[in-house]
Structure formats: structure tokens, C-alpha cells
């Protein structure tokens, strides 16, 4: 760690991990509700559990992205953060607002929450993933603007690297597209149309720039490969990402009432979205193979390579599975979507945040380069446990989805939704078991921060 102010990232990372735990617990509750319908009812109804599960994911990833930015921007810009106090202040505002929102979901009925927060004045609630009360959304905008100001000023006064500029572009896009959360037209087609400008243009657009920039930073730090080589790849990857991702938004416009040409545009361009992910995999492994040094933080390198592979599989391959309009005609809104969503979010965004935490946290806790061998070994166990169980969650949901599509939509005698849900219950049980193993991995991950603290750092020889 070169600059004192990079340390503000620590709070963000700790909060991110804490919320991650909450997300997984609610995921498990919901997974159980798939097979035991009244599990924890009426305290935690399914719709509330789902809302908490998805909202926590988004919020903790945002904490992770902000932490990553606060850590890497000063180091890339070679200057202290513009205003560390602002970063600390915004952290507490964001955490309190986030916690209050989640408590609101859990403690009062959603309609009451809408009344309490005066949703009538500027109605924005009630839409999937954007369930937050309007006042929380305004809070998110304030936090995002202060954050961008802080990061932007730091970049302006320091060295301007490609990594920083791509990151800033991604973060700006994140803030700009979130503004469409406030646009709530009464026409349902228009509503859905612009809703995707937040949801899709985040995860299949600007977030990928953030992913690319963080990955590039970690690769520069851990492999010692020339910055110029890594930057060239980064340019081409983000160009492909934006071209395919932006027009690829069309794969959400097939059946919502948008013009028909979107079936062609959406199919063709979104089918190309795996390409930049594939390029990212090739480049990550290439850079590690061409490394000029063996970095002793093996765990961080593992997460970085892991994210490249899993993002390609989850976002690329599993996305392609159901992106073509004629296929999506049958698979739309089935468990296939859930399978894709799980592996894509884990592979692309969870793992990159964990990679950054893995790289930066030891340095912020006073280590020279990395944690002790024992701590790293435990972290790598957690990597494999979480990653493999996520692969199984994805496979079980894919199995459930294929069966669901067939029984409910494709066979000669299509069955009702709930009848089909009963028939695919076995897959839901298996998914829940895989989810429990994921939780074990997560517990190990957290434990890895506390073991081997008094032991010396792993060295390259030991880490080899």
C-alpha cells in the first residue's frame, strides 16, 4: 500500500463481506421456500426474501466496487485520495441507508413502506431490483455523486492511466444509468423498456468496464507484465463489451411490446456478448503465463483467474444458451434464467470483488505483500468450495429449467406452472444442498481473515 488514504477501502470491504453473508442466508431461506412453501411464513414471505437476496447482492457489490476504486485509484494516480473524510462519511450514510431499507423490507409490509417513505410524491417503487424506497434511491444518487467527485478529483490531480479512465467511465455509467430508476412511465411497455437501461446496461455494460479495470489492476500488480500490453487488451475488450452489450439490450425487448426488429438485433448482438468474456479469459491466463515475477499472494491470483473463467461460463455461455429469440420464446422467465443469473453474478462480479479484497486486504492490514500460508490455504479452500457449489447450483437450476420448459411449454400436453414446480422439486432440493456447501465455503472465507495472523507472510518459494 503506497498511500495512506487507500485505507478507506477497508471499511467498504468489511461491509461488503457482511452484507454478502446476509445475501447468502436469505438465498438459503428462499431456496428452502421453493420446496417447503410456508417455511418461515409469515415472518419472511418469499417475495420479501427474494427482494432482500437481490438487493443485498447489488448493495454489497456496490460497496465492493467503491472499496476497490478507493484502493486502486490513488495507487494508479500516484496521489492521495482527494477527500478521505468524504469517503468515510459516505460509507456511513450508505451503510445506514442500506440497513434501514432492508429493515424496512423485513419489518413492515411493502405497501406500508411505500406510504411511510412517501412514494406517492415520486413513485419509483414496486419494480424488480429497483424496489428501494424513493428516498433510498435519492440517497444512492447522492452517495454515487460524492464518490464520483472524490474519485474524479483524485484522477484529475494525479497520473491518468488507462485503468483509472476505464474505471471512471464504468462508474460514471453506473451513476448515469441508475437515473432511469426515477423514470416511471405509466405505459407498461415503456416502463419495462427503460427499466432495462438500469438493469441490463449495468450488468452487461458499464459494470463490465469496472470488472475489466479491476482485473487489469490486479494482473498488473501480481504478474509484473508491461502495463502497455494489459492496456491494449483492456481497450479491445471494453470496445467489444460496449458494442455487443449496448445493442444486446435488445434480447430483453423480444416479448414486451417493443418493435420486432429487436428480435434480430437482440439475438445477433447479444450472441456476440460471450466474445469479450472469452477474450478476458485468454488474456488473464496469457498474462499470468507471461508473468515476470511470482507474486506470493497466490489466493488473489486464483480469484483473478477464477473470475475470468467463471464470468465466461456464467455470463457468456449460460447467457448464450437462452439469448436467441426462438430459444428464448420457450425459456423466458424459467429456471434457465435463474441458472444464468447465479453463475454470471458470481463469476463476473462476486469473484472480482473478492479478488480485489484478497489482493488489497492483507496490505491494508499491515502485511508487506500477502497473508500467511495458512490463511491463504484456507482462502483457497473457500474459493473452491464456493465456486464448485455455484457450478452445481447452476447445473441443478439448468436441469430444473430444461424440465420446466419441456413440461410447461413444449410438450404436447403442457402442464400448469405449480404442477411442474412439484415435478422439479428434486432439483430444488439439490440446489439447496449445494447452497449449504456454498455457505460452508463462505464461513471458511471469513475464517481465513482470522487464522495465521501471527504467522509470517507466505513467500514465493512457499507459495509455489
Amino acid at each position, binding site marked *: 500500500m503506497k498511500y495512506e488514504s487507500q485505507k478507506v477501502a477497508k471499511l467498504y470491504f468489511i461491509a461488503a463481506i457482511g452484507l454478502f453473508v446476509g445475501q447468502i442466508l436469505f438465498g438459503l431461506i428462499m431456496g428452502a421456500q421453493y420446496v417447503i412453501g410456508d417455511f418461515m411464513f409469515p415472518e419472511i414471505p418469499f417475495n420479501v426474501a427474494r427482494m432482500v437476496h437481490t438487493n443485498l447482492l447489488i448493495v454489497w457489490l456496490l460497496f465492493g466496487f467503491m472499496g476497490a476504486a478507493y484502493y486502486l485509484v490513488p495507487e494508479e494516480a500516484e496521489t492521495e485520495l482527494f477527500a478521505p473524510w468524504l469517503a468515510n462519511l459516505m460509507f456511513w450514510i450508505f451503510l445506514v441507508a442500506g440497513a434501514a431499507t432492508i429493515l424496512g423490507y423485513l419489518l413492515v409490509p411493502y405497501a406500508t413502506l411505500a406510504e411511510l417513505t412517501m412514494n406517492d410524491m415520486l413513485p419509483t417503487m414496486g419494480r424488480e431490483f429497483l424496489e428501494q424506497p424513493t428516498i433510498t434511491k435519492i440517497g444512492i444518487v447522492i452517495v454515487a455523486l460524492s464518490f464520483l467527485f472524490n474519485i474524479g478529483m483524485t484522477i484529475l490531480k494525479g497520473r491518468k492511466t488507462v485503468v483509472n479512465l476505464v474505471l471512471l467511465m464504468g462508474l460514471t455509467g453506473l451513476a448515469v444509468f441508475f437515473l432511469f430508476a426515477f423514470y416511471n412511465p405509466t405505459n407498461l411497455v415503456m416502463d419495462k423498456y427503460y427499466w432495462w437501461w438500469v438493469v441490463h446496461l449495468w450488468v452487461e455494460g458499464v459494470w463490465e468496464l469496472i470488472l475489466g479495470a479491476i482485473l487489469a489492476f490486479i494482473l498488473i500488480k501480481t504478474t509484473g507484465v508491461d502495463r502497455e500490453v494489459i492496456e*491494449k*487488451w483492456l*481497450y*479491445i475488450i471494453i*470496445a*467489444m463489451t460496449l458494442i455487443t452489450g449496448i445493442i444486446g439490450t435488445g434480447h430483453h425487448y423480444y416479448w414486451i411490446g417493443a*418493435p*420486432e*426488429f429487436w428480435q*434480430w*438485433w437482440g439475438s*445477433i*448482438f447479444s*450472441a*456476440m456478448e460471450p*466474445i469479450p468474456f472469452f*477474450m478476458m479469459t485468454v488474456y488473464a491466463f496469457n498474462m499470468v503465463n507471461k508473468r515476470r515475477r511470482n507474486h506470493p499472494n497466490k489466493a488473489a491470483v486464483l480469484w483473478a483467474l477464477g473470475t475470468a473463467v467463471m464470468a465466461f461460463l456464467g455470463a457468456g455461455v449460460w447467457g448464450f444458451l437462452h439469448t436467441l429469440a426462438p430459444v428464448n420464446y420457450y425459456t423466458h422467465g424459467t429456471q434457465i434464467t435463474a441458472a444464468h443469473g447465479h453463475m454470471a453474478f458470481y463469476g463476473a462480479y462476486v469473484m472480482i470483488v473478492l479478488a480485489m479484497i484478497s489482493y488489497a486486504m492483507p496490505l491494508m492490514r499491515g502485511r508487506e505483500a500477502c497473508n500467511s500460508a495458512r490463511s491463504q490455504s484456507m482462502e483457497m479452500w473457500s474459493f473452491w468450495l464456493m465456486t464448485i457449489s455455484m457450478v452445481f447450483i447452476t447445473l441443478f437450476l439448468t436441469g430444473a429449467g430444461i424440465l420446466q420448459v419441456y413440461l410447461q411449454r413444449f410438450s404436447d400436453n403442457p402442464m400448469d406452472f405449480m404442477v411442474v414446480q412439484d415435478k422439479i422439486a428434486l432439483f430444488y432440493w439439490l440446489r439447496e444442498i449445494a447452497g449449504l456447501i456454498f455457505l460452508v465455503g463462505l464461513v471458511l472465507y471469513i475464517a481465513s481473515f482470522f487464522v495465521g495472523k501471527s504467522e509470517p507472510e507466505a513467500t514465493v518459494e512457499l507459495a509455489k
Partner: protein
Amino acid sequence: MEKSKWPPGDLVIWIFIMAELLVFGVFFSAYAFTRANHVELFNTYQLTLDRNAALINTLALITSSYFVVRAVAAIRNDNSQRCFHWLLAALFMGVVFLVVKGAEYQHHFAHGVNLSTNTFYMFYLSLTFFHFLHVILGMVILIAVALKAKAGGYSASEYTGVETGASYWHMVDLVWMVLFPLVYVMR
């Protein structure tokens, strides 16, 4: 100059070119399959296209590609100024393409044609417009290369940038060479 490097230009532009060709390839296949199911519709509306304009554009792009080749040859002879001039000539042909294509669009839009008019126009507008954007991107790349050439940034020993720009421009040309017969001529 003797040892010719393969592929010419930067490797990364070739990854980009391959990805671009893949997208256009998929789009052309989609066109072909859809046309097979609506031959009459496609034949009818194909007649509303301006084949002469497209022919002029074909010649403009081929000529510009030739100029780009001359630009690469010039820099191989260490002649930066001549390289710059050939690139300007290529860019001029690019402008000709954009103007002619723009006039075609104006004609169609004046008749109220849009992406939802029918399947043929959907393909015609999509394919030509994506190609149109590529011509613009190719020109931006050529302008960057030309400015660097004018400033003496390339030499007979180091001209990767010129080859990189040229490779991309030839791709833009190549795509049109398929697009023109496929959409305008073939019946």
C-alpha cells in the same frame, strides 16, 4: 521490409476484425435464410433500392482500399508525406461513400421507410447502417494514422500503425463487397 510480419499490423486489430466479420457473417446468414422464406417480398422491395448509387459506393470503397495500399507502400519507402497524401485520398473516397449513402437514406426516409416497415427494409437498414457506422469508425482510425504519419510518427522500420489502420479499412471494404451483391443485386 524484407521479412514480412504476419499478420500485418497489430494482432489485437485482427481479433477485432475477426469478431466484426463474425457479426456480419451471422447477419448475412440471417438475411439469406429469411430471404429464402420471403423471396417475393425481398425481390419486390429490392427494386426500390438505388443500384447505381450502390455501384458508385462500391467503386469508391475499392478505390479507397487501393489508396490505402499505396499509403502502406509509401511508408515502406520511408516517405511519410506521400503516405499522408494517399491516406487523405482514401479518406476522401470514404466521404464520397458517406454522402452517397446518406442521400440514399434520405430518399428512403422521405418515403416513410423505417425498421418496422417490413422484413426486407429491416435487414436493408440494419445491415447498411451497421456498415455505415464501420465506415465512420474506419475513417476515424485512418485520420488518426494520417495525422501521425504527417507528424513523422512512422518510418520504413516501424509502420505497424499504418498496417493496422489499413487492415481495418480493408475489412470495411470487404464487408461491403459481400453486402452489395447480397442486398442490392442478387435476385
